[in-house]
Structures are given as structure tokens and as C-alpha cells.
């Protein structure tokens, strides 16, 4: 962990990793789109609306995965005070918010023709909406203070407290009666999805993950530069004060 806490080392690592994750993202999503829209069958019950699953479910996974990343980074920042961990948490929040928004909107577009409603206040949908608000709260809090370290600490506490929502989202369909159906892929006894439909789902899932890594590294790099700019500005101001 300490090895990567050094910003210069992180920048070198990012420069090596990013071309690969960017390339993988393009290939995986192109393949996912081909299998999802063209080379997979319609569902026996849901017809072609099942194709919404190939963007809805991966973005839901990402909403949870990005939040988990953010919570781990926040814990690292609070306990071990790694300066990079704060930047990772700050950079991840807008990406997670974007994926959660995609999940909510595509879910509504899927729910209307199949369930007969855009929205239902069941446990799964409501806890996912709370996740979206947690992301927005994190984004607002991190910039709410003049001192960036204070903002980062407040946001880290919010990220950790909000983490209780993650298992609630995952298990909401098992703990309570919901309109949303139970898990299909990650469940006991193997996936309940035909291989022809599982392929585009997993391709998109991995493609969204490499997209997240690529954009996260871009954003962390921008945050490191912002810290440098702040430091230079500060020494300039001090220099002027002395002279």
C-alpha cells in the first residue's frame, strides 16, 4: 500500500496501466454490444427488453463496486493518512454516481414495459436511490470546506457510514418482499441465465470495470496536479508576503 501512496510512483504506474485498460474497455464494450444487441436471443418471457439488462445490471454492479472502492480508500485515508487515498475516494464518487444514475434510469425503462411501472418504493429500488444520494452527498461534502483536508475527512466519514447501505442493497431482494426479482448471476447453485445471455452481461461487466479504472486514474492524476498547483500558489503567496 505504501508503495503506491507516493504520487510520483502512482503517476508512473497510471501511465503504464491506462493504455491497456482504455484499450480493453473499447474491445470489451464493443463485444458486449455486439453480443447484447445482435448475437443473443430475446428472453422467453420478456422479449427484447431483456437487452436492457446488459447495461442495467453492470451499472448496478459498478454502483456497488465503486462505493466499496470509495469506502476502502476512505478507511485507508482515515487510519493510515495516505494522501492518495483521499484523492482516490474523491475521484471515484462522480463515476459511481454516474453508474448509479444509469442503473436507476435504465431500470425505470425496463420496469415500465415489464412490471407496469417506472418506479416502485420497494427495498431494492429505494436502497439504490439512497446510494445515489450518498454519492451526491460525498461530492458536495468533499468541496464544502476551504481546507481540502477537512473536506476529505468529513467525506471519508460519510463514505464509511454509508457503506452499511451496500449489503442492504445486495440482500434486499432476499430479506424482504420486493417487486425487484432476486439475484440471477451471483447466487447459490450458479447463474439462472442462459449462457447466450450471460456472455454479453459479463463482457459489459468487465468492460465497465476497466472503464472505471481508466477514468479513475485520469481523475486521480488531475487531483495530483491540482494539489501541486495549490502548493505552488501557496509558496508564491508566502514569497510575496516575505518580500
Amino acid at each position, binding site marked *: 500500500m505504501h508503495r503506491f501512496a507516493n504520487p510520483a510512483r502512482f503517476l508512473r504506474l497510471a501511465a503504464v496501466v491506462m493504455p491497456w485498460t482504455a484499450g480493453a474497455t473499447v474491445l470489451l464494450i464493443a463485444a458486449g454490444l455486439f453480443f447484447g444487441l445482435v448475437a443473443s436471443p430475446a*428472453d422467453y418471457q420478456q422479449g427484447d427488453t431483456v437487452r436492457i439488462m446488459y447495461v442495467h445490471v453492470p451499472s448496478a454492479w459498478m454502483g456497488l463496486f465503486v462505493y466499496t472502492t470509495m469506502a476502502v480508500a476512505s478507511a485507508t485515508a482515515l487510519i493510515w493518512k495516505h494522501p492518495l487515498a483521499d484523492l482516490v475516494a474523491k475521484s471515484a464518487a462522480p463515476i459511481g454516481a454516474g453508474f448509479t444514475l444509469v442503473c436507476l434510469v435504465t431500470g425505470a425503462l425496463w420496469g415500465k*414495459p415489464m412490471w*407496469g*411501472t417506472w418506479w416502485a418504493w420497494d*427495498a431494492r429500488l429505494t436502497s439504490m436511490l439512497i446510494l445515489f444520494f450518498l454519492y451526491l452527498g460525498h461530492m458536495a461534502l468533499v468541496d464544502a470546506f476551504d481546507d481540502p483536508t477537512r473536506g476529505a475527512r468529513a467525506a471519508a466519514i460519510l463514505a464509511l457510514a454509508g457503506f452499511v447501505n451496500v449489503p442492504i442493497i445486495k440482500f434486499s431482494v432476499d430479506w424482504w418482499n420486493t417487486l425487484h426479482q432476486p439475484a440471477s448471476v451471483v447466487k447459490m447453485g450458479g447463474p439462472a441465465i442462459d449462457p447466450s445471455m450471460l456472455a454479453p452481461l459479463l463482457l459489459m461487466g468487465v468492460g465497465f470495470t476497466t472503464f472505471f479504472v481508466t477514468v479513475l486514474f485520469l481523475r486521480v492524476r488531475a487531483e495530483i496536479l491540482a494539489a501541486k498547483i495549490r502548493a505552488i500558489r501557496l509558496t508564491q503567496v508566502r514569497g510575496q508576503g516575505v518580500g
Partner: protein
Amino acid sequence: MTRKQRRLYFVVLGMLALGAATALVLTAFNDNLVYFHSPTELAEKGVPPERRVRIGGLVEKGSIQRDGQLVRFRVTDMVNAVPVTYNGILPDLFREEQGVVAEGKMGTDGVFVAADVLAKHDENYMPKEVSDALKASGHWQDGKEGGPKE
């Protein structure tokens, strides 16, 4: 104890306390967190008429009667069944032996008057050929999937 260890214990304890508090709250509000009740639950609890509730279950086989826009069907959890009337547009997935959630009020005559009917689908996804093949080979599990859980 170093400062790092102290912060670590503080975060771990904080998360545990928060998790326990959340679990307690969720357990206490369990009745409000379920989206619908099964016919058996409704029969056991007894619902005052004029109170808006949701019932969920499977659409009983052979129970659908259409009278223009008016639809009559029975919602079953394989133990108890509730007759439902509904006047409106049904979702595309509304079918016999499919999951359904009806929102409305229990009439004094024991017939549930639905103001809204939503379809619930199961977690199985497959092409039509596969479901046909499963049904032909007798491996189809009728009525087992797609219904509300106990």
C-alpha cells in the same frame, strides 16, 4: 497503542456499532419494508377494509376472466388465494402462473379491488427455444419460480 492502531480500532468499532444499529432498525421496521403481503399473511393478519395494501403471489392457473377492460383473477401463494378485480391496463408480463403484485383495498365481500396491477418477473433468463425444450423434456418447474418468497 500507536495512533494508527487507535484510529483503526475506532473505525472498526464505529462500523460495527453502526451495522448493529442499522440491523435493529431494519428488523423493527420489517413490516414497512416489505413491498407486498402474501394471501396467507393477509388472511392471518386481517386487513381493515378501506386500508390500501399490496398483495403479491402468482396468478392462479385458469382464473383469468376478462369482461372488456374489467379483469377478474385470483392471486395465490399455493396455500391461500384471494380473488381480485381490476379495471385498467395490465402490464405485458401479466400471465397465468406469473408473479403479480396488486395494490388496492379489500372489499367487505372478500374480493380485492385493485387500483394498480404490477407484474413481477423471476430471475431466470433464457431464450424461448430453451424454455420450450425444458417444458418438453419435463424439467420445467411449474409455479416454483417467480412467485413471492415466504
